[in-house]
């Protein structure tokens, strides 16, 4: 881990007893003792995740709207000031270059948050597609926390003066609302299926913000719980559920492909429009194991002897206490899977284990 990047919260992870791992080139905690307890804290109360490894960039200037609307599957023309949307960057084949959240600060300033593992690719993608005024926070300089859970907003509000050095009205932010001031940034967004916020503080205030939130009762949570929480909410993980070879339509996020503005010729539109109208090769389904075991990415999904797809993300769900997974299957096999009599199985260590298709998300809390 010696070459691994450290976030401004690194010392806090150590002092909080975090078990550190390498994740996409960053040293981050997988848990601070118990993944399951951290998961439950977020579902019942409030937990926080160091998400400073993510890529944060600001796109500014008169051309921002036009430039971004040609790159993002979702239509940022819908955004008013201080609101955000989730969308994908696609290549000409419709494959997903990355998924991201775009926040509109005003009509000449958009804030983009994308994944850590795709940082170089996305920065190069923007640069090669004429996004001119692009300013990414250097790796290691960003101090960003996701505070999530039913009590998260109230707890953050309660310590906002300590965290930001000024009173910050967080409680009145709508879902996918955001606010940027000189002292920080807050978006009512997240990756857990719970209410909550993602907040950016100045790097030199990182320790103070962490301590204020811990004092308020927010529990530090690691990457492990982040993964189980997002999967229960059926949120996609880039690299697992989304990749350059498959389109948003094939991966269950076809809703991010906004075709209403006929003149918006964003990259990949032709392929995606065709898939939406005529069907895509693959579709995403939810799978739950009937027999005992744990589903993992890469396992083969079959009907009888016939292989029909692959698990893209799987885990034991601490909330549901069952094994859940997202799978990418051939669309033409979907009717057979919906047939109640057809037996779905997943190959786990060369043994077929009985499974069933279930609706998504696995858990709906908000």
């Amino acid at each position, binding site marked *: 881990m010696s070459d691994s990047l450290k976030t401004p919260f690194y010392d806090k992870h150590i002092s909080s007893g975090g078990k550190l791992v390498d994740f996409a080139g960053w040293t981050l905690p*997988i*848990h601070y003792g118990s993944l399951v307890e951290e998961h439950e804290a977020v579902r019942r109360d409030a937990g926080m995740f160091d998400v400073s490894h993510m890529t944060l960039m600001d796109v500014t200037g008169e051309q921002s709207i036009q430039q971004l609307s040609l790159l993002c599957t979702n239509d940022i023309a819908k955004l008013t000031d201080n609101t955000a949307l989730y969308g994908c960057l696609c290549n000409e084949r419709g494959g997903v270059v990355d998924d991201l959240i775009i926040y509109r600060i005003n009509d000449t300033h958009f804030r983009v948050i994308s994944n850590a593992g795709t940082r170089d690719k996305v920065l190069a993608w923007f640069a090669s597609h004429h996004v001119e005024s692009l300013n990414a926070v250097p790796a290691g300089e960003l101090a960003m926390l996701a505070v999530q859970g039913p009590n998260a907003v109230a707890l953050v509000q309660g310590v906002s003066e300590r965290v930001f050095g000024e009173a910050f009205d967080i409680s009145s932010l709508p879902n996918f609302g955001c606010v940027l001031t000189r002292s920080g940034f807050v978006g009512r967004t997240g990756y857990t299926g719970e209410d909550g916020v993602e907040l950016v503080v100045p790097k030199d205030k990182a320790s103070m913000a962490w301590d204020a939130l811990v004092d308020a009762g927010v529990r530090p949570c690691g990457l*492990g719980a982040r993964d189980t929480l997002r999967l229960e909410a059926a949120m996609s993980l880039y690299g697992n559920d989304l990749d350059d070879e498959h389109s948003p339509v094939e991966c269950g996020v076809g809703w991010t492909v906004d075709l209403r503005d006929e003149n918006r010729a964003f990259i990949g539109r032709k392929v995606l429009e065709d898939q939406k109208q005529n069907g895509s090769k693959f579709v995403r389904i939810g799978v739950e194991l009937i027999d005992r*075991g*744990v589903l*993992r990415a890469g396992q083969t999904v079959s009907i009888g002897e016939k292989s029909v797809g692959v698990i893209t993300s799987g885990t*034991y769900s*601490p909330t549901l206490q069952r*094994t859940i997974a997202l799978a990418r299957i051939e669309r033409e096999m979907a009717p057979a899977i919906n047939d109640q009599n057809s037996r779905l199985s997943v190959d786990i260590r060369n043994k077929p284990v009985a499974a069933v298709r279930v609706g998504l998300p696995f858990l709906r809390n908000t």
Partner: protein
Amino acid sequence: METPGDLKFAESHEWARLNDDGTVSVGISHHAQEQLGDLVFVEVPEVDATVKAEDAIAVVESVKAASDIYAPVAGTVVAINEALADSPELINDSPFEDGWIFTLQPDNKDDLDSMMAAADYDSMVENE
């Protein structure tokens, strides 16, 4: 948690206990369960299965990952811990007692001599 002195250890973190009846019970160490985190599934071998030393014959899965459990010595599986099917967390809560995974009738109980003593295992873990 103190490592029981009567146990022998493998480098892959299994422990083995020679029972009074000559059978050998096997589980994973406190250190191993701590590294794995909350366990949610245990796949045990079949009773009567014949195994060689270092065969992967069981699997423990935490929320995040699966990990193979190796037979520390050659022999025949004579018992499995059926309580683990409903309560895999027994391995987290009581790794050296209630969290045992399977019991072997060893082909040769002297094979246990090649395993590490508790004190040696503790120092191996400390130097990891």
